[in-house]
């Protein structure tokens, strides 16, 4: 017992001591919860293309819901950079001085190296013939997507449906609300997160259509013939914002390398890896090479339809907001 305890103490001592000398060659990428495989592929590719003599680099990963991650950073999680799936969650860091005010201008495309959109995953052969947003409101269609209150994924789905309806009904909000109520009534299970909704649809076999990011749908349908991906003709742009956590990185002397790592996501090699995980990218050569996987789609932007993410949050998802009103009907 005593010896075990001594060993434990040695290990503990080691754990505390380690960051002290390895500091400038260790960076922490704090990310959203389903990006693990993606960054497990990005990290070695990034390390490989670094020049000789730049020293050893370890890239650590942390994955959880991106709002939880943002909160952890505010409480002291030593993140050098973030790769999130929610603009709001980076904005929270900017508001608290962890990330530069102009973070969206620091990297191309609103600091979003890749993007995706809410799309549909249906059962084999698409028996309910679900092709567009109007089908989600049809009688007898069972819809699955996560709760917009707790899940970014669910928020995108809700806003995409709303944006489509605004366009379809020429801005007639009564009709839009009517449509949204029908869609919400068709939702059979409201899971708290995207992965939970996927599990409900695939493992529990509930629902005719799962609305989730195109990347998630393609990842699953690509491996399993029981499902098929349907990309509706219109959808909502879902950005995946990145930023250097300057407050932490400047203290740890890792700012430059964190910036370089994020720049790598925009290189042809980085974009190629991102696209191989079914994300849409901007690099023209990569876009061309993957054209058959990503059908053309008209994308609305949150800023254009709802003003800003803050406004959308306030109007729709806050307590007593539009979502609450619709669900009460």
């Amino acid at each position: 017992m005593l010896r075990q305890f001594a060993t434990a103490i040695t290990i503990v001592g080691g754990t505390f001591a380690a960051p002290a000398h390895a500091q400038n060659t260790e960076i922490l990428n704090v990310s959203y919860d389903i990006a693990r495989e993606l960054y497990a592929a990005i990290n070695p590719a990034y390390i490989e293309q670094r020049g000789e003599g730049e020293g050893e680099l370890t890239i650590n990963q942390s994955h959880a819901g991106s709002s939880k991650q943002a909160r952890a950073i505010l409480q002291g999680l030593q993140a050098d950079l973030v790769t999130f799936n929610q603009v709001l969650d980076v904005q929270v860091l900017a508001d608290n001085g962890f990330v530069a005010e102009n973070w969206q201008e620091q990297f191309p495309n609103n600091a979003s190296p890749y993007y995706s959109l809410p799309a549909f995953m249906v059962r084999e052969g698409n028996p309910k013939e679900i092709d567009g947003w109007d089908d989600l409101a049809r009688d007898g269609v069972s819809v699955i997507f996560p709760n917009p209150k707790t899940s970014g994924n669910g928020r995108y789905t809700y806003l995409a449906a709303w944006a489509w309806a605004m366009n379809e009904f020429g801005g007639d909000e009564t009709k839009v609300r009517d449509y949204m109520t029908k869609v919400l009534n068709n939702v059979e299970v409201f899971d708290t997160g995207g992965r939970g909704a996927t599990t409900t649809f695939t493992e529990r076999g509930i629902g005719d259509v799962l609305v989730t990011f195109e990347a998630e749908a393609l990842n699953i349908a690509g491996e399993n013939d029981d499902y098929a991906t349907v990309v509706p003709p219109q959808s909502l742009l879902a950005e995946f914002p990145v930023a250097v956590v300057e407050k932490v990185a400047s203290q740890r002397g890792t700012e430059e390398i964190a910036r370089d790592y994020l720049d790598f996501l925009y290189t042809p090699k980085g974009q190629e890896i991102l696209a191989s995980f079914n994300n849409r990218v901007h690099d023209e050569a990569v876009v061309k090479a993957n054209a058959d996987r990503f059908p053309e789609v008209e994308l609305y932007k949150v800023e254009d339809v709802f003003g800003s993410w803050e406004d959308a949050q306030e109007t729709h998802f806050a307590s007593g907001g539009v979502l609450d009103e619709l669900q009460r009907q």
Partner: protein
Amino acid sequence: MKAKHLLIALAVLFALVVIVLPVAVIFQRAFAEGFAVWLAAVSEPETRSAIVLTVVTALIVVPVNIVFGLCAAWAIARFKFPGRRALLVVIELPFAISPIVAGLCFLLVYGAYGPVGGALQPYGIQLMFNLAGIVLVSLFVTCPFVVREVLPVLSVSGEDEERAALTLGASGWQMFRLVTVPNITWALVYGAILATARAIGEFGAVSVVSGAIRGQTMTLPLQIELLYNDYNTTGAFAAATVLALLALVTLVLRGLIALTHPVRGAAQ
């Protein structure tokens, strides 16, 4: 007679459905693809590091709890002092508080902006999102176990034997070692085992303060959930068997000690 059989059948059925079946399924799923696959899954670096972290946490938390639990139980059983009842209530508080709330409390106090965490930050000392944070919350959730088990035995066994030892010339330490400890061994071990099981199994509180850095601050329960969410069912179930095995080891230890140390005045 009928009622007796019915009761037995109910108890067995309940144990089967609620305990045996789920645990059996974990092992069945974990080994469904063969032992080699299981071994590969548990020796995957991130899972291995989660196992090490979990064991290290328990190795720190349990001894601290034994010492603290003994002191507290001794103080409460043998001395009268103001606030004695209050102390007992405070020690048992972790039973009543949901672990997730405990985690949040620790984050608010010891996090970068908390009163304690903020004061330590200028010195480069960080207490959250690393081993220190995980140990702190584990101490919190496990601290009632030893006290709760030892205290009743200490109270029942009374002071008579201890007084006698002192009268016959034993030193305080001799009295403690030769009279008190034998009386409470079983309770102490039992408390330590419960604390161990809780420390290695704790999810909620640890999840709040872990920071979820892969290969560094993921404990085994967190790693299991994460593997499961990554659609890595085999990996998740393999890691779950390790956790179940750790629990089994503590149970076997308990049984062995019970066999080799027939204790006087044992509570159990």
